[in-house]
């Protein structure tokens, strides 16, 4: 049947039996293949990502020069120069500070609400229905849909922005969390219930850590959408002049056709995104998922 299968007529090879004392295994910790320099460099996460960033920057510069339309698409070097100028002049830091503050409030509030919602959702069936229905309804709604309610409830300014950010974070995180919760192994669930855990404690002590890979993915998406929403919302919702954040900075620069400033603002968004991803989320991953063997 199988070309490589053994010769049917032949018995296994005859060999003598033997017994030995297991060899000495002290100091075995030192056995490690040394890595070449190239391997060690390639092993460095930061270095590899930096290389990617450099390549992207070069592509940007080259393409922008080829286009030669700085009002529409400035070069990387021009953007960096502007970025640096605006950074050192303090403008960019100020604006980013304002945005970050709003963002953090909205993000944390969104997470808290999402925790409450998903806890309700896994505890009762009506909770599940409620969450899936609300998510399906509100998730596709753009921020302007909330404008009237925001105006009535919170007026203008930061509370309204926070409200919109909560809207953008809540559903994305809840959706991921719920789907994570639902794929927690049955045995682990049963273990938790065996210890009389239920309701909030069950969620906190069993479901949350067990579903952490999905939750973390949700947190990342939520974070990204909080940014997007904030920048869009600053335009829709009234910034009262001085208090504008990065979104307003970008809008203003656009209105003044300071395209390099627009891109400097976007660069700020990107830089923060990269920092958050490679510092905060990476650290969380290394401390949790990778340590627990829940992620390769």
């Amino acid at each position, binding site marked *: *049947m*199988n070309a*490589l*299968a*053994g*010769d*049917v007529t*032949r*018995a*296994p*090879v*005859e*060999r*003598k*039996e*033997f*017994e*030995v*004392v*297991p*060899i*000495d*295994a*002290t*100091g*075995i*910790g*030192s*056995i*490690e*293949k040394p890595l070449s320099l190239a391997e060690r460099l390639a092993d460095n996460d930061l270095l590899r990502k930096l290389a990617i960033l450099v390549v992207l920057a070069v592509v940007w510069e080259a393409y922008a020069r080829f286009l030669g339309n700085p009002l529409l698409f400035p070069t990387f070097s021009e953007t960096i120069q502007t970025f640096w100028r605006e950074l050192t002049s303090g403008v960019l830091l100020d604006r980013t500070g304002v945005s970050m503050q709003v963002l953090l409030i909205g993000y944390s509030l969104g997470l808290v609400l999402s925790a409450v919602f998903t806890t309700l959702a896994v505890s009762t069936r009506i909770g599940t229905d409620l969450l899936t229905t609300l998510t399906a309804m509100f998730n596709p709604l753009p921020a302007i849909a909330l404008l009237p309610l925001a105006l009535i409830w919170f007026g203008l300014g930061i509370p309204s922005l926070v409200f919109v950010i909560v809207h953008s974070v809540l559903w994305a995180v809840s959706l991921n969390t719920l789907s994570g919760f639902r794929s927690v192994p049955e045995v682990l669930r049963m273990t938790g219930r065996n210890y009389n855990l239920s309701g909030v404690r069950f969620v906190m002590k069993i479901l949350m850590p067990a579903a952490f890979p999905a939750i973390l993915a949700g947190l990342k998406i939520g974070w990204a959408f909080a940014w997007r929403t904030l920048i869009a919302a600053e335009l829709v919702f009234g910034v009262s002049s001085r208090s504008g954040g990065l979104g307003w900075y970008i809008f203003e620069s656009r209105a003044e056709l300071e395209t390099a400033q627009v891109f400097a603002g976007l660069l700020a968004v990107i830089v923060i995104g990269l920092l958050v991803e490679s510092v905060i989320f990476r650290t969380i991953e*290394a401390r949790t998922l*990778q*340590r627990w063997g829940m992620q390769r």
Partner: protein
Amino acid sequence: MANPGINAGVGGGAKAPSPILDVRGATLQYKTPKHLVTATYKVDFDVYQSDRFVLLGPSGCGKSTLLKAVGGFMQPVEGTIRVRDRVVKAPGPDRMMVFQEFEQLMPWKTILQNVMFPMQATKRFDRGEIRDRALAVLDKVKLSKFIDVYPHMLSGGMKMRVAIARAMAMEPDILLMDEPFAALDALTRRKMQEELLSLWDQTRFTVLFVTHSIEEAIIVGSRILVLSPHPGRVRAELNAERFTHENVDMPEFGLLMKRIHGLLFEESEPVPEPETEAVA
């Protein structure tokens, strides 16, 4: 080479044909962020054509790790592993694995689809033949009634039988089995052991079999590699060709069991403390 005592033992069968599997001074390690865990240390052994080679040792001694390395999933930090004189670099269907864990079944495929899958994926069999082969092997493990059911609806033991059926259907050069019968009930286990032996009688395939049951090692194996406790090192290599289910009650069977038990658990000689863990 690293251990002259072992070379002397292997050298016994002079002018033997070249082995299918040749493991030489294999040290296997896990790198974790904090620790460097050595699972096996300088292990040598050869598996020849048509061997039923058993890896026997206490829990945590590195049997599964060794099997994974032969499967091509890990590279030794020291030493080499060769299959038919080629260094093992990657996994392949010539070395089919049956794992210890139930998760090895694909939850999104029915039992029948699970068994058919590797045959389809590797294209080792004719398209028309595959389904019949799968049905035949499922019949052998007594799961004909469950072919259209998904794995999560089976009991643990039934899942394991599916995994075994799946690997058997492939007729690999070397079958790598990691405690495959541990989760089966007594009767099914016995049946499966017999099935394996009778299949072996038909095609004389080569099998590398991990177990921690001395009895199973003697019944299933033609040659048994006894490993020391953690980190796994070679303790002995014994012949067990003579023994099957029929002669479990023979005095020689009992003697061999006793001998292996001694090798495994009685530290007759003063062996240096084996549980040294290096903290990186």
